[in-house]
């Protein structure tokens, strides 16, 4: 699933205008369009399905209340992602750090992914890692990252958002995005060295 807004038939401005004109069904279309992407963004930040669900509902509620103030200076995609990022960061600051992760099961397509096969066998048939073991290790490694680093890893590595778009959403420079990615990857490499492809 790519999150590149340029690859979409983009009638967001029309839907936004209809919403601002008082047509709630237009906003429903935006919810349907963006909920999977925003779910991924929030889920990989919180590592908890229930928290993600509540937070995502709050994000769309806030967006619906604020859409009358949206002037189109950025794309709706960027604007909505900025709301989600800010609310997620605030949520993580308040959340009890003892909160348990509540991870979704990977779907069955993962078993056909060559990167998954390579990561779980790592060229050594005697050392096979179960799907859940891999998932837990990936999650633990992600949670070790700072929120800023986890954000760019989530958006770039998992969601496939371009550097330039990440920079707009986070309101930082592209150089800062690349720098954060560099340090985040280095930290992940230390945590996940056993899965590194040879």
């Amino acid at each position, binding site marked *: *699933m790519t999150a590149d807004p340029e690859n979409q038939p983009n009638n967001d401005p029309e839907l936004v205008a209809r919403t601002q004109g008082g047509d709630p069904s237009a906003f*429903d279309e935006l*919810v*349907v369009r963006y*909920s*999977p992407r925003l*779910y*991924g963004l929030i*889920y*990989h930040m919180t590592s908890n*399905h229930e928290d*993600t*669900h509540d937070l*995502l*509902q709050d994000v*769309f*509620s806030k967006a*619906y209340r604020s859409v009358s103030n949206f002037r189109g200076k950025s794309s709706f995609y960027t604007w909505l992602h900025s709301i989600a990022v800010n609310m997620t960061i605030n949520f993580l600051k308040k959340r009890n750090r003892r909160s348990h992760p509540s*991870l*979704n*099961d*990977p*779907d069955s*397509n*993962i078993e056909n*992914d060559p*990167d*998954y096969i*390579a*990561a779980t066998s790592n060229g050594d048939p005697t050392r096979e890692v179960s799907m859940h073991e*891999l*998932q837990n290790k*990936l*999650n633990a490694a*992600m949670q070790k990252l700072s929120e800023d680093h986890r954000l760019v*890893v989530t958006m*770039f*590595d*998992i*969601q496939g958002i371009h550097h330039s778009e990440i920079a707009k959403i986070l309101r930082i420079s592209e150089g800062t995005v*690349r720098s954060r*990615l*560099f340090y985040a*990857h280095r930290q*992940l*490499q230390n945590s*996940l060295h056993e*899965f*590194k*492809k040879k």
Partner: protein
Amino acid sequence: MSDEHPMHRIIRLKRYEQPPEGYFDDFLREFHRRQRADLLNPSLGTLILERIQAVLSEIRVPAMAYAGAAAVAVVASVVILRQPGVSVAQPAFREVSYTQRPITIENLQPVSFKVEPRFDSLYSVPTPPPAAGNDSPRSF
């Protein structure tokens, strides 16, 4: 490039973690339900915000604007006048004595420009010697 970083391929596997099937179908229904609940049971913050908006909408803006502008002008004037180095020039007053007898013109004689003959000697102008054969005195 970050794209080629070995960790990119590993971390990308997390995209397979998906919510239960049918989750996004239910998500919109849940969104509508929460919106209705918010309308029926607004939060305290929402109530306060709505009350403030209602009060602000009832205020007559032009009257407030005039009053505000006047207040700003007064305050600005006071501030400017109280600044060191700014002094207002006082007009110089001359003492006036009211014991001085007023000058009246009632007792003055009217001025006449008619020259009496008796003053001829005082206002006489040297005259050239009379012409021969003309003995009559000149008068003004």
